């Protein structure tokens, strides 16, 4: 097991700080009258936060390729489900 390397704890602290900054960004952006752009902005922040947690805290960056594929499949599944469902609702 000597060849196994782990991230340094400072990485988790930096991720945590970035997550808190992004939380402040997303909350304060909601108070700006940006019209339709508010929601995409909030979701973009959420995706960034989720990516930080999954890549660093959940060690996806150094994970086995098979595990990376499984992780992506979950989100692709959600995207297909929501987008195809909205195709129906939005084109009635």
């Amino acid at each position, binding site marked *: 097991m000597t060849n196994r390397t782990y991230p340094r704890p400072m990485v988790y602290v930096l*991720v945590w700080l970035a997550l808190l900054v992004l939380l402040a960004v*997303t909350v304060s952006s909601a108070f700006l009258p*940006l019209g339709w752009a508010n929601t995409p902005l*909030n*979701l973009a922040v959420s995706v960034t936060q989720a990516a930080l947690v999954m890549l660093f805290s959940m060690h996806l960056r150094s*994970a086995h390729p098979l595990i990376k594929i499984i992780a992506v499949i979950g989100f692709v599944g959600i995207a297909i489900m*929501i987008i195809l*469902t*909205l195709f129906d609702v939005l084109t009635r």
Partner: protein
Amino acid sequence: MADALAAHAPQFDDAEQQRTASNLGIWIFLATEILFFGVLFAAYAITRVRFPDAFAAASRLTNLPLAGTNTAVLLTSSLTMALGVHAAQHGARRAVVGWLSLTVALGCAFLAIKAVEYRLDYLEHLVPTLDFRYAGPQADQVELFFYMYFFITAVHGLHVLIGIGCIATIAVMAARNAFSPDYFTPIDVTGLYWHLVDVIWLFVFPILYLISRS
């Protein structure tokens, strides 16, 4: 190295393969969890697209200060969990128990704040079926938002509760010296589950609390 070889079950070639297998297993479970919440998000997307104004009005009635605080609490619990896993990787038993206990405490704080929030929602007559009163336009659609709000947050809260139970269990196991740097799979996979519950909240929070505050 002899210890490392002894640390894996007979069906695996080595500890590394065993670790990958258990990680693959929890990730498949997490993918099903993502899809499980995905159904709720899809239902939310459909109703919000149909009733955007009602959802914006309803979102303004949710308690942003408490929910924002809760988000910070959950993000911090993710940090303490990651540090717990880090301590387990290096076999620091007391640090593992400490970080895991702190994670349990933060998880409980999240649920306590959520409970206060539910109580305030109840006092403001925002609980569908039980006591829902809304004077503005599109009251039925606003009520629909609150059905979603309570269902999504309650299902997420249940996941937090299960996570607290799992983390408390492995904290006790760690205190009894059940883990080593070669074997800490339960801490590893529980950590992954806890982070995912955090990730899901990162999406639940903006879609319920931040629709329109300006």
